[in-house]
């Protein structure tokens, strides 16, 4: 999350993919960085033990959210 905020501060459109169990942490980091409403993509936890097929499905989900955020700044994570 911090790295996306760093890119954003450098003027580059950015977002982050977060697993759902880390959402409060991502929001807290955005808040201390002065971007409390910063949008990011959320996928189900975990990643480390997933099969190839599950990773593909999570990637489809993540890309859909990331593209929406990068183009309009909207988040599906808040929905």
């Amino acid at each position, binding site marked *: 999350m911090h790295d996306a905020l760093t890119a954003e501060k450098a003027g580059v*459109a950015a977002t982050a993919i977060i697993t759902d169990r880390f959402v409060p942490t991502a929001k807290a980091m955005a808040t201390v960085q002065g971007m409390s409403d910063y949008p990011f993509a959320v996928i189900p936890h975990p*990643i480390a033990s997933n099969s190839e097929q599950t990773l593909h499905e999570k990637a*489809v989900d993540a890309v859909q959210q990331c593209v929406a955020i990068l183009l309009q700044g909207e988040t599906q994570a808040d929905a």
Partner: protein
Amino acid sequence: MTLRVLDPTFDNDQAVQATVSRLPSLAGRTVGLLDNGKLNVDTLLDHVETLLRSQHGVGTVIRLHKSDASRPAPEDVVRGFAGCDAVISAVGD
């Protein structure tokens, strides 16, 4: 007699609200994908890369890596952001 006590927290109002950059389209653009070195995040981003190219017409994908997920990206990776139109950072776990 009342007690006059002080607030122990950092005053968040001191933080400046930054503005965010957005793009009209990803077609032909350069997108940086940052992986944090944790298990399977690279594979997740392989799929993300394929989807960005095939479905959203992304021109170039730059893969960025950091080996220590517990620290901010090192300077050379941050410099790499400058060559991108957009950056996606994948946290994993």
